[in-house]
């Protein structure tokens, strides 16, 4: 039995090494080389000259934007997402799965398409305005509000799902025990439910924070190019064939990701709140 599973796992292992490990290794190597479109293969050397890019103000601003928006998105997703997850958990609704499906539903449509339509209803003339007679979002397309709204709208489901999973795992007897020991419901929530759901909050936060930090499509579309994220810069570098620049910035992002995974394993050893 075990042996068969091992054989079945082989294609994936090959896939994993060719399409994940090799590219990552290549990216790290490129990030410390002089590779760009003007360099031919014969001239390839190890070079750290382009590291000054990290201190350029455009890079720093992009990093700052990414960090601020990622943090804000995570925070907002946590506040609203926790509330929604808790409400779902408390709901007497027989089939909670349907509620969760409704939350996941938007994620099944294409991200770019979804963001484009969001940008559309945030601009001055849109279909909602002709239906409702007024502009639901005002004319916020291109502003930081539009970007933040788009990010929260897109990534909050991750938070909701992981917090919900953590909440559902809390034994109801623990809540009864807290009441029994004299804690009124609000105190019960802060002393028992919330601490026990922290795992889900951490998992959810990382699942919101990382794609927001590294993403470029949503800010690019919703800010109409006004707000530059680090992801936008990386994309541009590759588009303009500055491979080593792009790789270097991508490696920096990679460190953020690895750090987050370390944090995650510390909080959630069994990975039980991961989807």
């Amino acid at each position, binding site marked *: 039995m075990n042996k068969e599973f091992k054989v079945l796992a082989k294609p994936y292992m090959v896939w994993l090494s060719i399409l994940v490990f090799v590219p990552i290794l290549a990216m790290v190597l490129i990030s410390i080389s002089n590779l760009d479109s003007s360099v031919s293969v014969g001239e390839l050397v190890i070079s750290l000259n382009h590291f000054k890019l990290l201190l350029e103000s455009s890079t720093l601003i992009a990093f700052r934007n990414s960090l601020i928006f990622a943090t804000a998105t995570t925070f907002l997703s946590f506040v609203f997402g926790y509330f929604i997850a808790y409400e779902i958990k408390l709901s007497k609704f027989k089939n909670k799965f349907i509620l969760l499906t409704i939350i996941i539903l938007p994620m099944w449509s294409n991200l770019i398409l979804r963001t484009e339509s969001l940008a559309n209803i945030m601009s001055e003339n849109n279909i909602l305005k002709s239906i409702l007679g007024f502009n639901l979002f005002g004319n916020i397309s291109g502003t930081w509000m539009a970007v933040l709204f788009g990010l929260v709208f897109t990534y909050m489901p991750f938070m909701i799902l992981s917090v919900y999973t953590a909440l559902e795992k809390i034994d109801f007897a623990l809540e*009864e025990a807290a009441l029994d020991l004299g804690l009124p419901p609000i105190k019960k929530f802060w002393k*028992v439910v919330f601490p026990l759901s922290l795992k889900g909050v951490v998992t959810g936060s990382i699942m919101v924070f990382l794609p927001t930090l590294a993403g470029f499509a949503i800010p690019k579309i919703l800010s109409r190019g006004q707000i530059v994220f680090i992801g936008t810069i990386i994309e541009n570098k590759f588009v303009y064939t500055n491979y080593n620049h792009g790789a270097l910035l991508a490696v920096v992002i990679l460190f953020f990701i690895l750090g987050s995974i370390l944090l995650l394993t510390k909080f959630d050893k069994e990975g039980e709140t991961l989807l």
Partner: protein
Amino acid sequence: MANKKPLIELKNISKSYDDELVVNDVNLTIYENEFLTLLGPSGCGKTTILRMIAGFIKPEQGEVIINGKIFNDLPPYARPIHTVFQKYALFPHLNVIDNVAFGLNNRSWEYLENFFGKEKIEKEAKELGDISKKNILRKAIKNLIYKDSEQALKLVKLEGFKKRKVDQLSGGQQQRVALARALVNKPQILLLDEPLAALDLKLRQNMQYELKEMQRNLGITFLFVTHDQEEAMTMSDRIVVMKEGVIQQLGSPKSIYNEPLNRYVANFIGETNILKGTYVKKDVVNFLGVDFKCMGYNFNDNEEVDVVIRPEDFDVVDIEKAKLVGEVVFSLFKGVHNEYEVLVKNEKLLVHTYESYEVGQPIGLTIDPYEIHMMKVEKSE
């Protein structure tokens, strides 16, 4: 028992789930300092009664009265009652001592001032510094809470486990922590919901004695729920036998064992023989075709009765002296005694005795008058 103060009174309480009546018009008075057990198979409503007293569910009808006050609408956190849950329900994010201190740690200032008494707090605070400062008093209370918690851990013999995480404890130890966590609050009433069900036999027996001793020493009323009749027998002052939401019999372990009121109780409490008989006249009962002397029962002459004889109440005698003669059809060595099935006039009797017989051997039995118990015949069965 009559001169004892009633602590909990249940008056005509009923509760149903999905139109099924799980507690049906139950009346029960629980006194101070007693160990009362609700005994019955799963689904008989015993846990529901416990949860109504704890405040987790509201009775649909009737009143839950504690200390003379109606408690129906009071939430669980406002009741002087603590529960030891079946699966312990220890908080996994806290260590052992914080689990025990959890209740007191989250009480209000006024509650704690009342709980420990001003004098005790000030005495503790004097050792820490200026007693007029609020933070010194707060610290003193913290100290007292943890002193009490350690005391409670000592009571359940877990002194060395303060800093352990609860998931590093065995089932028995978790059980003890749960007990300490409830006892540290000095409840008037401790509710125990099948707390020993998950423990192995040896540990369970030990805990039974310890619980009984604790109850006696602390002077707290224990309300215990179990489906294990032996457990109920060992620990209780009084036992309530329940079936389908109705109390079948209430009494001391001895009286329930010896004088069951109906077939259900007789069968539920230990192994027994129930035989059809006729109450011939005063102090004479006929069953298995033989007249027996009996005592202490009043029925009409020639009334049908159910006769209850415990397996250990048969006396094994020589065939000539025997009132009943039968044949051993099955034998089992149980260590202390032998268990036999004896066929007498097409009726199988369960007999416990120290004497040893082989399968197929004839055996003579008599029964002392005071060992013969009788019940009214139930029409429905």
